[in-house]
C-alpha cells in the first residue's frame, strides 16, 4: 500500500481531513477522561464495608418527649428483646452509626496522654457483645467484648472505654511492626486496651475527607443512651430481610408508641443504605457512560457521513483506477488506510488534549491523575471505531465498476 498518493489526495481535502481529525481528538480526550471518572466511581462504590450486607436491616428510632438517659437504657433493652422475638431475626444491637451512614463519631487515638497530634484517626462505633455477631465481622485476633464490660454513657459524656476492638488496618497503622493485641492506647486522655482485631469494617463516611482512613474503625464496649434515639441493626436469616423489615415498625410501636420511625426511610435494608450512600457516584458513572456512548456514536456517524461523501465525489477516479487494474481489495484498503492516517493524527492530538484536560481538572477539582492505560485504551477504541465506521463506505467504493471511468466525461 502506498501512502504517498493518499497523502496527496488528503491535501486536496484539507478542511474535511482536519475536521475529522479534530473530532477524533476531542472524542478521545473526552472519552478517556469520562472512562477514568467511571472507573474511579465504580471502584469507590463497590468498596466492601466488611459487614454481612445481604442480611442486615438498619432501623432509625427516635424517642418522643426526651426521655432521660437512665430511662433510655431500659427502653432500648426492651426494644432489643422485642426485635429478637421476630421470626427470622438472628441478632440485634443498638448503636450510633454504621458503615455508609454518612454521619457518625470520630476521634483520635494517641500513644501518650496529651499528645499534640493524634497518631490515628478513627471512627467510633458504640457496640456491645452482640455487635460482632450481628454485623458478621470476622475476629482475626483476640476476643469479643464480654457482657459484663459493656458500659453506658450519655451523648455529651466523655468517651473513655477501658477496652476496644479495632480493625486490622487501624491495628497496622498503630503498630506496623507487630501485634496490636494487648497494647494500651489513649482515647480522650484515658488509657484503653486493644482486646480484639477484626478483619475489616469501614467508617460511616464515603466522602473524600475520610478516604485516607476509610477502614480505621474502633468498636467501643459502650451503649450510647441518646434521648433523641439511635439506630438498631438487625441481622436476619439469609433471604428474610424483606419479611423481617415489614414487621419492625409494627413490633416497635407495639412495645411503645412514644417514638418516631420514619415511614419512608426509618427501616432500610442495607442494599437501600448502600444505594443512597453512593447515589452520587453511581449517577456520575452513568452520566459519563451516556456521554461516552453518544459521543462515540456521533463520531462514528460523522466518519461514515464524510467518507460516503468522499466516495461519491471520487467515483470517477475510482473507476479509472479500477479500469487501470486496481482490485476490489486495493480500493478497500485505500480508504481504510486513509482513515487510519487521519485517525492517527487525531489520536495523537487527542492524547495530548486528554492529558491536558485531566491536568486542568486535577488543578480545579479533587480529581486523580489520568493513568496512561486509559489514554492507550481510548486510542485503540477510536482507531478501531474509525476502521469500522469507514468499512461500509469503503466497501461501496470497492464495488464501483471500472466502466464508471467512461461515463459522463
Amino acid at each position, binding site marked *: 500500500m502506498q501512502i504517498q498518493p493518499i497523502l496527496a489526495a488528503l491535501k486536496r481535502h484539507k*478542511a*474535511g481531513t482536519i*475536521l*475529522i481529525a*479534530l*473530532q477524533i481528538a*476531542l*472524542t478521545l*480526550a*473526552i472519552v478517556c*477522561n*469520562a472512562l477514568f*471518572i467511571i472507573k474511579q466511581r465504580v471502584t469507590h462504590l463497590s468498596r466492601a464495608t466488611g459487614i454481612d450486607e445481604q442480611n442486615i436491616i438498619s432501623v432509625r428510632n*427516635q*424517642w*418522643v*418527649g*426526651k426521655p432521660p438517659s437512665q430511662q433510655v437504657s431500659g427502653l432500648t433493652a426492651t426494644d432489643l428483646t422485642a426485635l429478637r422475638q421476630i421470626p427470622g431475626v438472628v441478632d440485634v444491637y443498638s448503636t450510633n452509626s454504621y458503615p455508609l451512614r*454518612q454521619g457518625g463519631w470520630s476521634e483520635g487515638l494517641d500513644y501518650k496522654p496529651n499528645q*499534640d497530634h493524634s497518631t490515628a484517626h478513627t471512627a467510633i462505633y458504640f457496640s456491645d457483645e452482640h455487635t460482632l455477631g450481628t454485623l458478621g465481622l470476622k475476629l482475626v485476633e483476640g476476643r469479643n467484648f464480654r457482657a459484663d464490660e459493656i458500659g453506658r454513657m*450519655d451523648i*455529651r*459524656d*466523655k468517651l473513655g472505654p477501658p477496652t476496644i476492638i479495632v480493625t486490622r488496618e487501624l491495628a497496622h497503622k498503630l503498630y506496623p511492626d507487630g501485634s496490636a493485641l494487648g497494647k494500651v492506647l489513649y482515647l*480522650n486522655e484515658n488509657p484503653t486496651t486493644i482486646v480484639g482485631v477484626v478483619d475489616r469494617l469501614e467508617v460511616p463516611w464515603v466522602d473524600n475527607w475520610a478516604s485516607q482512613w476509610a477502614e480505621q474503625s474502633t468498636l467501643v464496649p459502650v451503649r450510647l443512651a441518646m434521648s*433523641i434515639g439511635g439506630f438498631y441493626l438487625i441481622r436476619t436469616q439469609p433471604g428474610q430481610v424483606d419479611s423481617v423489615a415489614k414487621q419492625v415498625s409494627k413490633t416497635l*410501636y407495639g412495645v411503645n*408508641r*412514644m*417514638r*418516631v420511625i*420514619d415511614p419512608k426511610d426509618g427501616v432500610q435494608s442495607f442494599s437501600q443504605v448502600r444505594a443512597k450512600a453512593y*447515589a*452520587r457516584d*453511581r*449517577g*456520575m458513572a*452513568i*452520566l*459519563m457512560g*451516556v*456521554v461516552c456512548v*453518544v*459521543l462515540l456514536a*456521533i*463520531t462514528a*456517524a*460523522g466518519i461514515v*457521513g*464524510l467518507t460516503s*461523501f*468522499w466516495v*461519491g*465525489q471520487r467515483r470517477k477516479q475510482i473507476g479509472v483506477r479500477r479500469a487501470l487494474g486496481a482490485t476490489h481489495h486495493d480500493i478497500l484498503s485505500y480508504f481504510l488506510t486513509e482513515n487510519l492516517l487521519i485517525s492517527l493524527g487525531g489520536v495523537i492530538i487527542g492524547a495530548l488534549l486528554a492529558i491536558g*484536560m485531566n491536568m486542568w*481538572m486535577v488543578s*480545579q*477539582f*479533587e*480529581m486523580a491523575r489520568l493513568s496512561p492505560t486509559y489514554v492507550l485504551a481510548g486510542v485503540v477504541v477510536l482507531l478501531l471505531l474509525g476502521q469500522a465506521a469507514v468499512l461500509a463506505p469503503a466497501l461501496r467504493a470497492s464495488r464501483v465498476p471500472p466502466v464508471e471511468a467512461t461515463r459522463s466525461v
Partner: protein
Amino acid sequence: MFGYYLELALRSLRRSPGLTALMVLTIGFGVAASMTTYSVFRAVSGDPMPWKSSKLFVPQIDMWGPSGRASDGEPPDAMDYTDAMKLMRDHRAKLQSAMYEISPSVVPADAGKHPIHVSGHAVYSEFFPMLDVPFKFGSSWSADDDAQRAAVAVISSKLSQKLFGDANSVGKTVNVEGKDYRVVGVLNEWNPQPRFYDVVNNGGGFSTDFEDVFLPFQTAVQASIRNDGNTDCNATPAESGFLGLQHSSCTWIAYMAELDDAAAVTTYRQYLDGYAHDQQQAGRFGWAPNNRLRNLPQWLDYKHVVPSDTKVALLVALGLLIACLVNTAGLLLAKFLRRSGEIGVRRALGAPRLAIYTQFLTEAGMIGLAGGALGLLLTGMGVASVSWVLPRDIASLARVDFSLLVLTLLVSVMATTLAGLYPTYRAACVQPAWQLKSN
C-alpha cells in the same frame, strides 16, 4: 427572498435525508446533553437571594487558635455559644441571628396519630426579616419574645396543613418535644436551595426536606432542644450534656448578619477584630485576631456548596457539544461542496457572494432549528430522568422552564450557524467558470 431560500434549503435537506437526519441527531444530542447538565448546574449554583445576598455576611471568629485552624489558616466555620451570644448581645449589625439546627418530634393532638419527626432551626426574630421569609399567615415573633424566652413557634405551611388542615393555624398550639408552643406565623412554601443560612450544619447545603419548625433561640436552649447539626470540638467539654456544650468551646452555631453598605461592613469588621482583641487581652485567646467576614456568595463559594461533580459533568457535556459541532461542520462542508455545480450556475446567473452566504446559512440555521426541536424533546426527557441518575436532593431542583427552552433553541441555532460558517465560506468561494466548464 428569504422564503425562496427556505424553500431551497428544504429541498436540499430532503434530497439527502440520511445526511440531514444525521446532522439533526448530532445537534439534538449535543444540545440536549449540555442543556440537561446545565439545568442541574443552574439549579445548584444559583444565587438563593440575588437581590440581597451581597448584603448578608457570615462572621467567623478564631476561638480555637493555631491548633484548631485548618491547614490554610482558616478559623472554624461555626461559633461556640459564648461568642455567638456575645455577638447577639452587642447587636452591631442592622439585622442578625445566631441559629442552630434542631430535629424535634411533634406530637399531634389527635391521639390516634403517631408522633412525627420534623426538622427546623432555633433562630432569633430578626432571622425572618433578614432573609425576607414569606409568611402565609401571621408573622415572626418579636424581639420581646426572644428576650422573654416565649413559647412561640413559626411553622411551615406543610406542617400546619398536616396538624390543622387548611385553616389559619395562628394562635393554635403545637406540641414540640412534649412542650406546648403558640403558633405565631405560618410560612408560605419557603424552602431555599441551597439552605444557605446554615450550610455548615447541612452537609452539602441541599435537602429535599422542608424546614417545618422555627423556635426562638433562647426558648429552644432553655427547653434543652439539642442541636442536630454538626458539633466540632477541639477539646472535650468539661461538663456533660447540652449544658456542657453551651459552656464548652465546641462550635455548633451558625451566624448571619445583614450589613447594608461598605461603611457598615468596615465598622463590623473592626468590631469583630476589637472583640477578638479584647478576648486576647482578657487571656481567653492566646493569639492575634484571625477573623473572617464573607458575604453570602463568597461564603457559598468558600464552602464548596456547588458539588464539583456538577461542574465536571457540565464541562464534559460542553465538550460533547463542541465535538458535535465539529462533526456538523464536517457534514455541512461535505453537503455544501457537493453542490458546487448548483452554486456555479447561480453565481454565473448573477447571484452575488452575499446571496450564497444567505442561502447556505439559512440552510444551516434550519438544521439548527430542527436539531433544537429534537434537543428540546431530549432535554425534557433528560431533565425528567435526571432523578434516576443523580441524588434526589439535587435532581429535584433541576427543571425545565421557559428560559431553558429558549436557551436550548438559541444555543442550537447559533451553534449550527457557527458550524456552518466555514462550509458556507467555502461554498461562496466556488468559481463559477470552473464549475460550468467541468460539467
